[in-house]
C-alpha cells in the first residue's frame, strides 16, 4: 500500500500545528501502527526498519517484558511466559476459552472478574494487560517517529467483536496510555484504504480472514461515504485454526499422545504454520517431528481446512442476505488478512462471489492504513465538508430478557450506528415495585444461548395493579459500537441506567490496580500526566470554541451571550499554565456550561444549512 495520496496540500482547518494521530491494527498475529504524513498514509517502522510487530509478549523473571520478534522466537522454549494470539482471549471468560476447542499452552487463573488470567513468572496477567504491552510499544514507536505526544489513536477491532471484546480493547488502550478516538471495524478500515486508493464507488465486499478472526462486510461507497450494509463473521475463526488443524494431523500421523506439554505444542504449531505458508506456493511439503517424517500435500491440507472455509462462506451468504444484495451486484471483492494468501480461501471467495477477488493490496497493512486515515479525520486535520464518513453497523442483535426466558430484540443486527431505540414494558404482578433488566446480545431466541451483557434493577416503581406501570427501556449504541441502557418508569419518572460493563470485562478495581502498577503512572509522573491531560483538554476546548465563534458567533449569539463566553475563555486562558489540574478542570467545566446552548444552536443550524437553498417544489417531480 505504497502510494495513498490524499489531496491535502498542507491545509489544516485551524492555524495550529497538525495534530498527531495514528491508526493501530491490533492483530492476532501481527500489529502495526500507521499515520498520515504530508498527505501520505504509511506504516511506521521500528529502529530496525520493520513495520510488522508480532503480537507476542514474553514476561522475563527479571521483570522485563519483551514484545515482538524476540518474544515470538522464545515461544517454544518459554511457552508459559510467552503469550501469542492474546486477541483470541480478549473479552472472554474461562468457559469461552475452553470452547475455543484447542489446547492452549498456558496455565490460567481466574481473576475477580472471571476473566482468564495467564500465570506467568511475573504473576497473573489478564489478556487486557498483555494487549496493553503491545499497544505501548506501538505508541512509543509512533511518538518517537513523529516527535510528539499523540492526541489519540483509532484502534481496529474485528467487526464481529461483541460488546465485551470491544470494551476489553478499549481498556487495553487506556492501560497503554492511549486516548482512543474511535474503535474502527477492520473490514471498514480496509474499505476506506481500498476505496480512497482506487477511487472506488458502488458495492464492495471485504473478506477479512486474519490470524484469529473472520469478518465479512458489504459496503456501499458513495463519494467519501462508506456505508456498511451488513457485516458478519466469526470471532473465533482464523489462520490459527488452520495451524491447529495441521498440528492435530501431525499428532495423529506421528502417533503422539494427545496430551502434550506446552513446549511441544508450541513447536508443533510453529511447524504447522511454516507448512501452511509453504503450501501457498508449492504442491506439497515435507514434515518431520522427532523420528516421524511425513509429507503434507496441498489437497490434504485443503481437506483439513474445508470445514473452516465453509464456515466463512456461510457467514458471507448470511451477510449478503442481510444486506439484500445479490452476489452479481457487487463491484469488487477485496481480500484482507494474512490468511487470504491460502489458495483455497481465494478460490472459495471467487466461487461464492463469482468474480476474481482483489489480492493486490497488501493484506497485512491495509487495515492500519485505513485506521490512520480515519484517525487523521477525527483529529480534525481533514478539510471541512469533504472528509470521509464511515457509517457502521452493530454486528449482533441487542435485546432484553422477557417472560419465559426469551430474548426480545430491541436493536437487530446490522442497524446503522449510532442508534437509540426504546421499548415499553409493564409489570406482571400487582404491587410490583422493582423490575430486573437483563441485557443480552446474540441472535438466538433463548436467553441461555445469548451472551449476558448486564443486569440491573429499576427500583421504586409505585405499587400499581399488574400491567398499569409503563417502563420504557432505552438502548443507545454509540459510534464505537458500545452500549448504554437506561430504564424509566413513565408515570413516576423513576430512572436507572447502566453503562454496560460486560461480565467478562475487567472490574473497575482491577483496572485501577493495573493503572497504578503501570510504571507510566508511577509517583509524581501520575500527577504530571493528569495536569498535562487537563491542559491538552483545555487547549482543545479553547480552540474549538474560538473556531465556533468565528464561524457562527455573529449569527447565533447575542452580544451579551458572546461576551459571557469570551470572559470564560479569558478566565481559562489565565489558569492554563498553572500547576493545578483541578483548577483547570473547573474552568473547563464553566466554559462548557456557558457554551451549551451555543453548541445546540450550531448543530441545528448546520442541519438546516444542509437543506437550505432547496425548496419543496424543487424536490418534487
Amino acid at each position: 500500500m505504497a502510494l495513498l495520496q490524499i489531496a491535502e496540500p498542507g491545509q489544516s482547518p485551524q492555524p495550529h500545528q497538525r495534530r498527531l494521530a495514528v491508526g493501530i491494527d491490533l492483530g492476532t498475529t501481527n500489529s502495526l501502527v500507521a499515520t498520515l504524513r504530508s498527505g501520505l498514509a504509511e506504516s511506521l517502522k521500528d529502529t530496525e526498519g520493520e513495520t510488522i510487530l508480532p503480537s507476542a509478549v514474553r514476561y522475563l523473571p527479571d521483570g522485563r517484558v519483551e514484545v515482538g520478534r524476540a518474544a515470538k522466537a522464545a515461544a517454544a522454549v518459554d511457552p508459559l511466559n510467552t503469550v501469542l494470539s492474546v486477541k483470541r482471549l480478549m473479552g472472554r471468560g474461562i468457559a469461552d476459552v475452553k470452547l475455543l476447542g484447542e489446547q492452549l499452552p498456558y496455565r490460567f487463573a481466574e481473576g475477580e472478574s472471571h476473566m482468564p488470567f495467564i500465570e506467568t513468572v511475573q504473576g497473573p496477567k489478564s489478556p487486557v494487560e498483555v494487549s496493553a504491552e503491545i499497544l505501548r510499544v506501538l505508541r512509543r514507536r509512533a511518538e518517537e517517529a513523529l516527535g510528539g505526544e499523540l492526541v489519540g489513536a483509532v484502534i481496529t477491532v474485528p467487526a464481529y467483536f461483541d460488546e465485551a471484546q470491544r470494551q476489553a480493547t478499549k481498556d487495553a488502550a487506556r492501560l497503554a496510555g492511549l486516548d482512543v478516538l474511535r474503535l474502527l471495524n477492520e473490514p471498514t478500515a480496509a474499505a476506506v484504504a481500498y476505496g480512497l486508493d482506487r477511487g472506488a464507488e458502488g458495492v464492495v465486499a471485504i473478506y477479512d480472514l486474519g490470524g484469529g478472526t473472520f469478518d465479512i462486510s458489504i459496503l456501499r461507497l458513495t463519494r467519501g461515504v462508506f456505508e456498511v450494509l451488513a457485516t458478519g463473521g466469526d470471532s473465533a475463526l482464523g489462520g490459527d485454526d488452520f495451524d491447529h488443524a495441521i498440528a492435530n494431523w501431525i499428532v495423529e500421523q506421528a502417533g503422539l499422545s494427545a496430551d502434550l506439554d506446552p513446549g511441544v505444542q508450541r513447536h508443533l504449531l510453529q511447524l504447522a504454520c511454516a507448512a501452511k505458508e509453504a503450501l501457498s506456493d508449492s504442491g506439497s511439503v515435507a514434515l518431520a517431528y522427532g523420528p516421524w517424517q511425513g509429507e503434507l500435500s496441498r489437497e490434504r491440507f485443503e481437506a483439513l481446512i474445508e470445514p473452516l472455509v465453509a464456515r466463512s462462506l456461510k457467514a458471507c451468504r448470511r451477510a449478503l442476505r442481510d444486506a439484500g444484495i445479490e452476489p452479481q451486484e457487487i463491484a469488487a471483492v477485496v481480500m484482507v488478512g494474512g490468511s487470504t494468501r491460502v489458495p483455497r480461501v481465494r478460490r472459495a471467495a471467487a466461487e461464492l462471489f463469482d468474480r476474481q477477488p482483489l489480492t493486490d493490496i497488501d493484506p497485512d497493512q491495509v487495515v492500519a492504513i485505513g485506521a490512520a486515515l480515519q484517525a487523521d479525520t477525527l483529529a480534525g486535520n481533514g478539510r471541512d465538508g469533504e472528509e470521509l464518513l464511515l457509517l457502521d453497523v452493530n454486528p449482533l442483535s441487542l435485546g432484553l430478557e422477557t417472560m419465559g426466558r426469551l430474548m426480545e430484540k430491541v436493536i437487530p443486527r446490522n442497524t446503522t450506528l449510532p442508534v437509540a431505540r426504546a421499548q415499553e414494558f409493564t409489570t406482571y404482578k400487582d404491587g410490583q415495585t422493582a423490575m430486573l433488566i437483563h441485557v443480552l446480545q446474540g441472535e438466538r431466541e433463548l436467553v441461555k444461548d445469548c451472551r449476558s451483557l448486564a443486569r440491573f434493577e429499576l427500583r421504586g416503581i409505585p405499587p400499581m395493579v399488574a400491567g398499569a406501570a409503563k417502563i420504557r427501556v432505552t438502548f443507545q449504541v454509540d459510534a464505537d459500537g458500545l452500549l448504554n441502557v437506561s430504564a424509566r418508569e413513565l408515570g413516576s419518572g423513576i430512572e436507572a441506567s447502566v453503562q454496560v460493563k460486560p461480565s467478562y470485562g475487567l472490574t473497575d478495581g482491577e483496572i485501577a490496580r493495573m493503572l497504578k502498577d503501570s510504571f507510566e503512572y508511577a509517583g509524581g509522573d501520575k500527577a504530571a500526566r493528569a495536569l498535562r491531560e487537563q491542559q491538552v483538554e483545555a487547549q482543545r476546548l479553547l480552540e474549538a470554541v474560538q473556531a465556533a465563534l468565528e464561524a457562527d458567533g455573529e449569527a447565533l449569539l447575542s452580544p451579551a451571550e458572546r461576551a459571557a463566553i469570551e470572559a470564560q475563555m479569558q478566565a481559562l486562558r489565565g489558569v492554563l499554565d498553572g500547576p493545578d489540574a483541578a483548577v483547570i478542570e473547573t474552568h473547563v467545566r464553566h466554559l462548557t456550561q456557558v457554551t451549551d446552548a451555543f453548541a445546540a444552536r450550531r448543530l441545528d443550524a448546520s442541519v438546516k444549512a444542509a437543506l437550505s437553498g432547496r425548496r419543496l417544489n424543487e424536490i418534487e417531480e
Partner: protein
Amino acid sequence: MGNASHFALFDLEPDFRLDQDRLAVRYRELVRRVHPDRFAGAPEREQRLALEEAARLNEAYQTLKSPSQRARYLLSLQGEELSQETTVQDPAFLMQQMELREELQELQDSADLAGVARFKRRLVQDQEQLNEGFAACWADPRRRDEAERLARRMQFLDKLFAEVRQLEERLDD
C-alpha cells in the same frame, strides 16, 4: 430540529411514494453534519448532542426507507397510532396468512431451496400490490380503515420475510 416529522427532517412532503435515491442522497448530506465523528475533538456536551441527533436521523431514515414502516408512520401522522393487533376484522387475510405459513413449513420440511426462492418472489409481488393499494388510499380520511388494513398486511409480510430469511439460514447449515 426539535419534533419535526421524519419527512420534514429530509425536507420532503409527507407521501407514501418516495424517491429512494433522493432520500439516500439527502440522508448522506445530513449525516455528514451530525455524525459523532465530526465532533471527536469537541466538548462532551456537543458529542452527546451529536450522538442523539445522528441516532434520530438514522431512525428517521430507517423508517422512511421501509414501505411498511413508512405506511405506519404516515398513519400515525394523521393523528392515531396503528394498533398492534394484526388480523382482527380481516378474515380473508387471516386465511391467507395461515396458508402462507403452512407453505413455509412444508418448504422447511422438504428443504426445498428453489421453492424458497419462488416463495420469496411471490411475496415480493404481494408486497408491490399492497404498496400500490396503500398509495392510492392513505391520504383519503374516508378510506382510513382500508389504509390501516393494508398497513397491517404489510407488517405481516415483513415478518414473513424475516421468517424466510431464518429458514434460509437454517437450510444453509
